């Protein structure tokens, strides 16, 4: 086992142990800071309960649709922006600044127009996912070297073939990087919106636990969400690394959440 891994695991174990000891010591109210073991027990109970799956499905539904819509719009807008220098420079600051605002404050508008159900969460998720994907797509298309297109044309490529055999593969990695960021913020946006106004979903459930002061369960659920997001992110990072294996350092630009 290499040293970094040892330090990493050691740190994680240390933090969890500290959590456990602090939780048991009574230095902090147990109602506020339950020990790790208690949280884990709650987690197991949580996963065994029936209604848990309902919330998981609702959240997954929102995130899935939101991400898909955001993705589609971002590709439709981002790709043409990348092909024109003028358009790119026209829109770049707009995207940069609008991409950086906290999108959750637009939730009231989504609630006003789409209601308090899953639709408004889909809206927030789509909007959140849109920006990083659009920016990365535009940038990726922009960076396709003109020589590749010239070479393909001289080798007999039609317009369609230039899109499918030059633009698609050479922007794939960067677009995927954008999608990774987009999926991350879509998850955050949807779940955060659920904690605000909702009828179901993991975020909703977590805030319900909070209101009912079922703190251990709340910790357990948040812990679960957090770990899931972390793992998903890491897995996608691996996948992107693999698709970019032929080049040295091929990651997209990371805009704000």
């Amino acid at each position, binding site marked *: 086992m290499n040293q970094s*891994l040892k330090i*990493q695991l050691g*740190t994680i174990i240390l933090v969890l142990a500290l959590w456990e000891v602090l939780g048991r010591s009574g230095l902090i109210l147990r109602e506020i800071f339950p020990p790790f073991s208690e949280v884990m027990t709650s987690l197991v109970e949580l996963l065994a309960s029936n209604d848990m799956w309902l919330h998981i499905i609702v959240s997954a539904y929102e995130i899935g649709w939101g991400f898909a819509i955001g993705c589609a719009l971002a590709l439709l807008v981002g790709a043409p922006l990348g092909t024109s220098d003028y358009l790119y420079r026209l829109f770049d600051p707009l995207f940069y600044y*609008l991409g950086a*605002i906290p999108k959750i404050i637009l939730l*009231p508008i989504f609630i006003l127009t789409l209601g308090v159900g899953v639709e408004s969460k889909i809206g927030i998720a789509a909007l959140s996912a849109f920006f990083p994907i659009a920016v990365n797509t535009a940038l990726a298309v922009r960076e396709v070297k003109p020589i590749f297109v010239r070479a393909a044309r001289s080798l007999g490529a039609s317009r369609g073939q230039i899109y499918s055999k030059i633009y698609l593969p050479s922007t794939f990695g960067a677009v995927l990087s954008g999608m990774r960021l987009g999926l991350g913020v879509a998850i955050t946006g949807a*779940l955060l919106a659920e904690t605000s106004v909702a009828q179901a979903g993991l975020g909703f459930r977590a805030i319900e636990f909070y209101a009912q002061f079922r703190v251990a369960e709340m910790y357990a659920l948040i812990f679960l969400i*957090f770990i899931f*997001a972390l793992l998903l992110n890491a897995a996608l990072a691996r996948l992107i690394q693999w698709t970019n294996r032929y080049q040295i350092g091929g990651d997209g630009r990371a805009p704000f959440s």
Partner: protein
Amino acid sequence: MKRRKAPPLYLARLLLVLTLLILLELAIRIGLINRFFVVLPSELIPQVLRDLVDREFLTLVGITFYETAAAFLFASVVGVGIGYLLWRSRRLGVAYEPLIAGLFASPIILLYPIFLVIFGRTPLAIIAQGAIFGVLPVILFTRQAFAGVSPTLLKVAASMNLSTRDRFRYILLPAAAPTIFTGLRLGLTYILIGVVAMEYIVQIGGLGKLVAETSLRLSTDELYSGITLVVAISVLFIYLTQRVENAVRR
């Protein structure tokens, strides 16, 4: 030399925004978009101007900035310190870098109920969460800043027989400063975003709470005005921090 801020581009951006607003206005007026959902731009602008000079609004801006500043103070001091230590100890640095980067990419804001439980529904909860938000990029960039100081420069330092302190003051710090500044700016931006989002969700504090409250009042004018103001202030803030960074880095 490339002309960067070519006036036609600015003009085009202005025209673009104006066109969109006019289209929106028309769409609402002819009933394509329901008046109940979206407010007329022509009515929004006077409302925004009225709210802008409102004393309550200015207080809320003050609160948001106070929370952001407090979180930033913590994030910058602790972040630069930890970043430096992680650079000094290569072993720890190499081990912790991916952990911190992983945390940085994770949805920290979803932890907010925990902060609420621990700190109560107070600005302290927001500041604490904002600080966590901001400290991560500062750590990452500080470590990178020191690690990126060119070996030649360090050799020069060695050849000049500087004391450890002088070496740090005259060689390392100036060389690392630009990247550290980038980290600080990123941290500050993240803190602002996090603070406003938290304020909105838990309905305490400043600008975020403004939006939350107007949304409850069922007044479309006020809601849109509030959102416009928050967006405008965020954009202005990000723009200014960028300008400051550019000025400092030069």
